[in-house]
């Protein structure tokens, strides 16, 4: 008798809508919980959508190629003889109410529009005539939802079952359970309860952001026509996400910048040697930088830290965000526990992450939880640049090209390989000297690169 609503799942914390790339099941197909129903394109990746109920796919409400806001009913799974007219009838094409609308309608706004990454499962039952007044009858005001797309800084990773590890996330028991069951990372949820406590509505609000981003279609380059001075190119969903998130970093986070020049001769040589070894996977300059930063961050936990309003959260582990440039924007997959990984592991995993980023095949959990990020434009022959911090991280390292430059040696003038790095720092978390000392260590590790191997 169970009727399962299939809703557009929330697959990343910034996701507001998704496009059905294709349905892998068609109307009338028998469905088992866990079956892959469809492929969904989000702003970050293409993701497979699982079924959370048994029965028959009775109805597809959003066709392949169409877009739907998170939480929108996109299909119905039910037994052959179930009446699904009521469920289908409820489906409104309008997106769920804006997260900030304080007086959204009663029932829907209280429930999870969708609990990511699982679509909401709800059995449909005939409503009996309700008594004259139920305690839950009137429309209830809904407290303002937290800002969408403003993730909470990530605390130390979870240790053990149900625990919250070193960095405590303040959350109600119910919020914890719902988050655990629906795959929401509490570290990414902004709490709206007393003292920033995460309560149920915050976890649920993660799935009720409005659909504001226009079509994800890649911009079509029309040949310039004479007399036409400009053209308006629709934002891709990734571009829209970047446009929305970056001002949330640049404006509220007081950035300052520390630049250092690193002699890369020894590192270059080491890399050549390593890459010359048989069976050794290729190691890039960036892998060396990742390894150096991960090791240095362990020594400088003040940089591996996040501003929390009333406190600074210092992370004991390094989750390294590695910016990957794509045609339509950029994406920052996260290399987890980078501090505990060898150079070879870093090289292998980074390549895998970058490749899958380009194919947009990253999993949700690979896109969140970084404690520090690296953005490398070296391959574009960039001398030096500065990056915008990706909140809630406290710092990001911008890495330029390794260039051959004239250097003064003991014997006179010579040629050396130099690389400029610029650390963007959140001044609320750290000061210039802290940033400088961290860079000193990064520099030392790269200039004496054997340290990267131990």
């Amino acid at each position, binding site marked *: 008798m*169970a*009727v399962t609503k299939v809703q557009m799942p929330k697959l990343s914390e910034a996701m507001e809508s998704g496009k059905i790339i294709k349905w892998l099941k068609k109307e009338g197909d028998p469905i088992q919980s866990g079956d892959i129903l469809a492929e969904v394109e989000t702003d970050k990746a293409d993701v497979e959508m699982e079924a959370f109920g048994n029965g028959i796919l009775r109805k597809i409400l959003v066709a392949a190629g169409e877009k739907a806001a998170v939480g929108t009913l996109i299909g119905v799974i039910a037994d052959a003889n179930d009446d699904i007219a009521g469920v289908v009838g409820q489906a409104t094409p309008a997106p769920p109410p804006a997260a900030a609308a*304080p*007086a959204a309608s009663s029932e829907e706004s*209280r429930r999870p529009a969708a609990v990511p990454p699982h679509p909401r499962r*709800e*059995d*449909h*039952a005939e*409503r*009996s005539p*309700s*008594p*004259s*007044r*139920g*305690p*839950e*009858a*009137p429309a*209830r*005001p*809904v*407290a303002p939802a937290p800002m969408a797309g403003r993730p909470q800084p990530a605390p130390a990773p979870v240790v053990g079952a149900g625990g919250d590890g070193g960095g405590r996330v303040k959350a*109600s*028991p*119910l*919020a914890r*359970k*719902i988050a655990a*069951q629906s795959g929401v990372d509490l570290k990414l949820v902004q709490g709206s309860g007393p003292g920033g406590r995460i*309560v*149920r509505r915050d976890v649920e609000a993660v799935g009720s952001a409005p659909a504001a981003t226009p079509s994800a279609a890649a911009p079509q380059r029309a040949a310039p026509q004479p007399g036409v001075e400009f053209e308006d190119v629709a934002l891709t969903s990734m571009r829209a996400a970047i446009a929305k998130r970056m001002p949330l970093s640049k404006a509220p986070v007081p950035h300052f910048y520390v630049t250092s020049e690193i002699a890369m001769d020894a590192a270059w040589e080491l890399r050549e040697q390593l890459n010359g070894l048989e069976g050794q996977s290729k190691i890039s300059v960036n892998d060396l930088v990742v390894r150096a930063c991960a090791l240095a961050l362990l020594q400088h936990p003040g940089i591996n830290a996040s501003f929390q309003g009333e406190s600074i959260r210092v992370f004991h582990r390094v989750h390294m965000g590695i910016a990957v440039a794509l045609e339509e924007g950029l994406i920052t997959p996260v290399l987890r526990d980078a501090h505990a990984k060898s150079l070879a592991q870093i090289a292998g995993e980074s390549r895998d992450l970058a490749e899958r980023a380009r194919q947009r095949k990253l999993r949700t959990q690979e896109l969140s939880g970084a404690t520090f990020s690296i953005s490398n434009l070296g391959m574009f022959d960039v001398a030096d640049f500065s990056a915008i911090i990706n909140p809630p991280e406290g710092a990001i390292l911008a890495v330029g090209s390794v260039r051959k430059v004239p250097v003064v040696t003991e014997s006179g003038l010579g040629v050396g390989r130099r690389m400029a790095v610029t650390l963007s720092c959140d001044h609320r978390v750290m000061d210039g000297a802290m940033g400088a000392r961290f860079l000193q260590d990064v520099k030392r590790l790269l200039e004496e690169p054997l340290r990267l191997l131990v």
Partner: protein
Amino acid sequence: MATHAFDVVVVGTGPGGYVAAIRASQLGLSVGVVEDDRPGGVCLNWGCIPTKALLRNAEVVQLFERAETFGITVQGLQVDYAAAVKRSRGVADRMAKGVEFLFKKNKITLFPGTGALKSRTTVEVNGASGTDTLEARRAVVLATGSEPKSLPGVTIDEKRVISSNGAVRNEAKPKSIVIIGAGAVGVEFADVYRAYGVEVTILEALDRVVPIEDQEISAQLARNLSRRGIQIKTGVKVSAVTPGGAGVVVETDGGKLEAEQVLMAVGRAARIKGVGIEALGIAMDRGFVKASPTMETSVKGVYAIGDVAGPPLLAHKAMAEGVVAAEAIAGKQPRPVDYGNVPSCTYCRPQVASIGLTEAKAREGGREVSVGKFPFTANGKAVALAETDGFVKVVADKKTGEILGAHIIGPEATEVIHEFAVGRTLEATLEELMHTIHAHPTLSEAALEATLAALGHAIHI
């Protein structure tokens, strides 16, 4: 005729109005209040408080009647209903004086008379000593409350056909009474009258007594009331109430009934007449003033709280709204009232208290629900008190352990309910309640056991 200016003018001093006034004063605002009766409104004067005094009398009478249970022999027991009403009036007077004292303490100026909005910022007060004009610099709060409703074509004369207003005042009790409506008001007066020997018949249009409560609660209460000789007829439609017979004849689709009096307990309607709501064009919703989550009406600067602002018509909901309105007016950002978490209490014996969803409502959504029940017969304290009727029932979400609802019928149910209210406010789940050590022996242990039962492992049953 004089004009007075205040930051806030509150019309009505029931539990919504007086709380709003005090909270506004605490936040540094000057406050004038208007009241056409005694401060405290229906709650303190004619509702919650005096009826609780009458119910206590009924309880004492019942204890004397079963004194044998405790090995106590009572001879020549005399009960005086007029004395019970007098005591109840004394209790109400004392509480109303308490509100007057609180007004003085908080430097709130009371204007006796009828208040009417003349503009968004002006309230005219017509009192015994003339007319006053109150200017509100920041906001007007409408807290005019509600009044008993009747059935179409039936006039409440407070003699033969009475409302709770008459019932709480009349020192003479009828020989027999038909109570129309088996909600909280109906069953509470049924309890009082029956304790004092009145022949009581309750008529309810819906299929059970206290129809907003969980079905099992209704069933248990119906058993208890019937056992005490109260006639209950549910699913009955009243077509006419006319004078005749022993006093009044009540015609229903199930036949005629006669009684000395009829008590109308079919609900309450917002008091909006003469308040100036239409003239200002304040939006209404199903007979009540429409208010935002911060209790502001459709007219900027005019707030509405309590019964006039819609269901549930409960004093504690009004108080909560009063606080929200006062804080919003003072420029704070109050947390809106959570209407899904308002306890509902009925003070008949056994008492009934509930919060959240009934089992049926919880299942309507189609979610998987776990239910735990624990009877007071298995609770040591209840047995010692010889008050073993009733049970605690917990309705939880099977997946998360969220406490969807709690339903209690039994001794001090209206006190025991609050652990569920606090639990729900904190978003505790069954597990947190389970890990909360409950003192032994207490009635509240039944709440713990019901929680354990919902988790599948009650100890004491």
